[in-house]
């Protein structure tokens, strides 16, 4: 089809949306009827219309995180009909369009759920645990101004491509939401892979993996059970190979390094 235009009539939908006043309050589903939704609008634009409707009825709109609406900022944190980011493969919620749904459909909308992602309000959750993991080792320690010429570091195209595959992670946390153990190993594995595949990441390779895993455990994320729900939910198609690489790196570092707290606390 070639188009991108309003279909006439549109979709009539029943939405069950998770409402929760704040972190401490108890949450519940509320049910809303929506009429005449264009199949060409995005899922978030459908929620915009719901919010306009609620506002006009004097009811408080649904809070949800969103920003770029082009699938790259990683703000989206919705579970749609039981699936993180909804039914489409490699698609963040903001890129999901209503043509994927049919007239008369019932849709459940919930926030990402994990112990390490407390709910802030309605569909908004707190994913700052990811920042704390990165702060422990998800970087290369280079100060501004000191580096050598960029082309002095030769990197085989294959290695650069593989590193880029891992670096494409948008930090949305769908991997955690989809995992029965609420593990963050795809997220952590992606960063470990990105940096350990490149020559720049070598000097800190061991201390990085030990420190990041230590923080990951501290935040209350679970362990990988090889179910691969994370890969299936990932909007960027990050492969579970990265979890294998994380395990390999962690094992190698554990066998050769000092305790993580000592090694990472370092200088």
């Amino acid at each position: 089809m070639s188009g991108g235009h309003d279909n006439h009539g549109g979709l009539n939908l029943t939405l069950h949306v998770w409402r929760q006043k704040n972190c401490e309050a108890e949450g519940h589903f509320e049910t809303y009827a929506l009429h005449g939704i264009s199949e060409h609008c995005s899922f978030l634009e459908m929620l915009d219309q719901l919010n306009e409707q609620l506002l006009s009825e004097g009811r408080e709109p649904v809070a949800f995180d969103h920003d770029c609406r082009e699938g790259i900022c990683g703000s989206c944190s919705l579970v749609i009909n039981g699936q993180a980011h909804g039914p489409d493969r490699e698609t963040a919620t903001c890129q999901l369009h209503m043509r994927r749904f049919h007239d008369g459909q019932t849709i459940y909308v919930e926030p990402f759920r994990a112990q390490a992602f407390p709910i802030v309000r309605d569909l908004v959750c707190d994913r700052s645990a990811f920042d704390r993991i990165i702060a422990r080792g998800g970087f290369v320690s280079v100060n501004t101004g000191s580096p050598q010429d960029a082309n002095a570091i030769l990197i085989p195209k294959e290695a650069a491509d593989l590193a880029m595959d891992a670096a494409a992670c948008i930090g949305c946390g769908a991997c955690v939401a989809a995992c029965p153990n609420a593990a963050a190993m795809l997220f952590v594995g992606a960063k470990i892979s990105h940096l350990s595949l490149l020559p720049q990441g070598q000097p800190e390779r061991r201390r990085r993996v030990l420190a990041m895993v230590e923080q990951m455990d501290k935040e209350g994320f679970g362990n990988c059970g090889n179910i691969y729900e994370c890969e299936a939910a990932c909007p960027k198609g990050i492969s579970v190979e990265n979890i294998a690489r994380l395990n390999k790196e962690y094992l190698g570092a554990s066998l050769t390094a000092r305790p993580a707290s000592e090694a990472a606390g370092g200088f």
Partner: protein
Amino acid sequence: MTTPTTPILDSKCPSGPMSERWSKHRFELKLVNPANKRKFHVLVVGTGLAGASAAASLAELGYRVTVLCIHDTPRRAHSIAAQGGINAAKNYPNDGDSVRRLFYDTVKGGDYRARESNVHRLAEVSTSIIDQCVAQGVPFAREYGGLLDNRSFGGAQVSRTFYARGQTGQQLLLGAYQSMMRHVGLGKVTLLPRREMLDLVLVDGIARGVIARELTTGAVERYAADAVLLATGGYGNVFFLSTNAKFSNTTAIWRAHKRGALFGNPCFTQIHPTCIPVSGSYQSKLTLMSESLRNDGRVWVPKHKGDRRSPDQIPEDERDYYLERIYPSFGNLVPRDIASRRAKEMADLGRGVGESGMAVYLDFRDAIARDGAPRIRERYGNLFQMYERITADDPYKVPMRIYPAVHYTMGGLWVDYNLESTIPGLFVLGEANFSDHGANRLGASALMQGLADGYFVIPSTIGAHFAGRKLGAVTTDHPSFAAAERDVQGRLGKLLSIDGRRSADDFHRELGLVMWNHCGMARNEKGLKSALGTIRGLRAQFWENLRVLGTGEELNRELEKAGRVADFIELAELMVIDAEHRRESCGGHFREESQTPEGEALRDDASYAYVAAWQHASDGPAMGWNLHREPLTFEEVKLTQRSYK
């Protein structure tokens, strides 16, 4: 409404040979002794490329840094959405590039409305940016031999653009974010997410802090510092529909403006030529398709008005590859302002495509035939996928439909060569300032400027503020903080109490339409004058008929939006006044009254070779501003009519 005055703004640009100015200036700047650096506290607002790179670099130097971030995490800043690449004068491809050529291209591309000294510095530090990012592990594209790959980009005839697939902004931002998070881990940077700056606090005329709202609890907070850096991005969302993210707003710089910072060239807006066209009234934002696509895609429309055949039914000799026809030497790679205006012209002539007729084709048929689909997929795979998601069309088979959309604002707070605004101690970085792109920004130069400001300029220039001024100790107990907090609380309370009928988004959409129609791709006196009246009327309505539910003491997205829309409405008034006052065409500012016989922008250098810096003077039904002019002198690049033919 406006009182023309002409005090000369001091840009503090160094003198002497252009290529030595930046090193001379750095030598002449006062230094802060390493032991003293830890006594100074820097507040950085915004965590995109400019803010995150500045925070990391300043922390490395030993300053105490506090960072306010509007998102739940700094990694979501809108720099992340930049797709195509970052320019640097490395000349790795041996195709004749140099610092001088990048400087020249940028001054010319900006249609001679940028400061030469700033642009030269930008070109100089561009090479260090690439070195820095590679050292951080940014996975730029490589050739098989392991060297960095480059590509060409709109507005340039050399290949100087470095890229990481179609996600260059993401990778550069993550590099800066990770560097900043390293210092968060080391305790040198204090990161405060979900904070929105709502006012600037001045003590004795110097910027000494901000008032911010914690967005999840609604708590209004005070932050004191010895310097304030605004790296809060551009204001393209004044048009409601733009390629900017939904959080992108003008409030931080607008509040600083109303506290006395001059606003430079507010009407200079970049309309990006390759975006996915508007499809319906529910549309909440527009999506950019990287202009790197113009390297391989050919832009065309049917030769005949009203030709509604599907593109594969239109034979070659009935297609008009109009950019290649009009601009044989640059072809599809003409600068953004020109590509946008020509697309609008085709649509206005009735030769646009798609159901609305407000689109042109970007066709990859020939590139796929030449290089094969796998090579094209390697270059643009994620963009093609994104396009298909949104439109349900497969660009490997059907030409993309594209149309211009608001993308970037060259205007912003006026800053001197040190990136300092007219308020001492208030520095403005990245898209939030007005400085380096003149009236039109070249592709792949926004990332370059954000990182140049953050990694390389501010770490040197901020020292002049600390070493050159006596800064007394100031805490948040100072009466200026109490007064600013009262203003903020008053504004929030007012927004919550209007109890009208219309949502903030509803006002915002209306404002956007007025701006797009009258202060968008083409502007004329009649349209601008009518827009001014409409905007003032809209502002009055807003304060009478806005509806915000809930309270200020909780996560309240409607309240947040309302505050931003209130500031956008005021900014829109200034943009229109600026556009009306500049009766020449230059770059992205196209005044229909001022064009060449071929329909190109016609500058009036005798009257308008200056930066228009506006000083807020009064509120009221019609707001008032005083105009200051910073004359632009061109010593190195000869002023000519831009030609890309």
